[in-house]
């Protein structure tokens, strides 16, 4: 075991020398964690190599490294078997490559944050067809808003919100460029609404109609009978 571990460490060191992950924007701590996992025998040499190679190639492919690094950290912390980790990371890379290609429109490459959001949405269960449909119906919205729509739709799907209704409201938000960041919390509002006995179809209709009128998230909350707060209050000290 000890001999196998040190051999794994040597193999990994060779990989790192050939393509230093840190030079490719990979956080050194993550590269070191993979290396340590290989040395401890947690990862087979081939698995560690696959992960390092995947990490090292992200930047060249125009993909963000942070979500992949976080996923590896999570896998190592949860003691996920090596082959499962490698498969999951490769699938994730596939999703991110698809997201990057799909969100590149009008000759503009999407900002990293948008790419992360769209890639994560695919990982959360949004289908590639749904992401493609969002881009096709983007109207005047840019990649950031399309990515937000993707996340909203993925989170709604995750809580069993009717898929068709979710797609309709995100499409409306994109058509009117009205899907501001606060809509990212829609799935949480849906859960609270359910607790108060407000059915999903009423929430969906209220959201769709506010988005169609380019209204605010607060308008939507008022429409379903929730109170609102003023997060842009100018006063430094609230009225006394």
């Amino acid at each position, binding site marked *: 075991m000890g001999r196998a571990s040190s051999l794994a460490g040597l193999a990994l060191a060779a990989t790192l020398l050939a393509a230093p992950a840190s030079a490719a924007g990979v956080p050194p701590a993550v590269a070191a964690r993979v290396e340590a996992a290989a040395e401890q025998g947690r990862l087979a040499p081939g698995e560690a190599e696959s992960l390092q190679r995947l990490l090292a190639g992200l930047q060249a492919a125009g993909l963000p490294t942070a979500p992949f690094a976080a996923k590896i950290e999570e896998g190592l912390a949860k003691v996920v078997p090596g082959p499962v980790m490698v498969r999951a990371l490769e699938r994730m890379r596939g999703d991110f490559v698809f997201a990057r290609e799909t969100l590149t429109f009008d000759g503009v490459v999407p900002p990293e944050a948008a790419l992360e959001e769209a890639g994560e949405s695919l990982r959360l269960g949004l289908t590639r067809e749904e992401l493609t449909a969002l881009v096709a119906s983007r109207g005047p919205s840019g990649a950031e808003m399309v990515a937000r729509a993707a996340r909203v739709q993925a989170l709604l799907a995750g809580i069993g919100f009717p898929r068709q209704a979710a797609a309709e409201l995100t499409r409306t938000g994109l058509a009117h460029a009205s899907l501001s960041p*606060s809509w990212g919390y829609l799935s949480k509002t849906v859960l609270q609404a359910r607790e108060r006995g407000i059915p999903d179809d009423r929430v969906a209709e209220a959201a769709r109609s*506010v988005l169609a009128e380019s209204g605010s998230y607060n308008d939507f909350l*008022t429409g379903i009978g929730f109170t609102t707060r003023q*997060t842009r209050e100018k006063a430094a000290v609230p009225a*006394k």
Partner: protein
Amino acid sequence: MHTNGIVMRNTRAIPLLLLVALLAGCAMIEGQYYLNSERYEDGRKDFAPKLAQSPNDPQLNYYMARFELGAERPDRALPYIQKAVALVPDKAEYRFWEGVTWWALQEPAKERAAYEKALVLDPDLRGAQLYLAHNLLDAGDATGALRLYDKVLARDPYEPQAMFNRAVALERLGRAREMRTALLAYMELYPDGAQARQGAQMLNLAGDYTWRNHVVGLRTVTLRSIDFSTGGSTLTEDACASLDVIGSVMSIKRDFGLDIVVFVKGDAGLARKRALAVREYITRMYPQVAPNRVFLSWFGAEEAVKAGGKAVALAESVNLFTRTN
């Protein structure tokens, strides 16, 4: 002359003091400037290096939180406001904004705890009273919310959020008559926006059609009902004010027409006269609205409307809706 000299010297001193404050990096003045001008991104960019240099400055942390909240990023605001609170635990305003941040993150229990702490530190902090009331109302405690709204309104009788949500609390407590009175008072002062739309729905649901929502072009507008002199076809002053809203919109947006549908139970002739009076008013006051954009219908019958799934019959009414050309 002497007084003027002092005024002159002071007037000159104000920009100088501001400049000194800015040069000295007075976080409050700068932070407030960015908040007032709604330049949240600029504020964040300006404050980030300062915060890196002085990570334990409570004001810098507070303003960073406010900028992130303003930019609708409560997840990023949270660590800053929590740090501000940790650095100055007895500052009620920081606790208040921590509560607002928790609200934006949709964590109602944590939001409530923050307002409660703020109110322990400063029982008169009206913002915390108001938002704690909102929190209680959303949690189903309409009685607790009502008590706090009354407290806020005792000091500021026209606070719109308190006025509106007090009516909501009354509705949830089944006190329909008081709700109606409270809501009508609110609608008189604040007839626009999402709360007015909601207010009109609540009134209609309670059988009061003083206000109604109408789809005009792409928007839903809340208007006082179109009334006439008793038994006649002379528009009331309030009715004219409602038609002014329609006329203004139609003057600017010319891609839709207006349907005017008048109901008078048992008197189709009067219904017709009223329909003509509405068209005459709009086209006379707003000459940009051509008469052929206004379509009239009239019925000597009740208008059947639905509110909350229930059918209601209105003996005399005017319904307005738009059609795209």
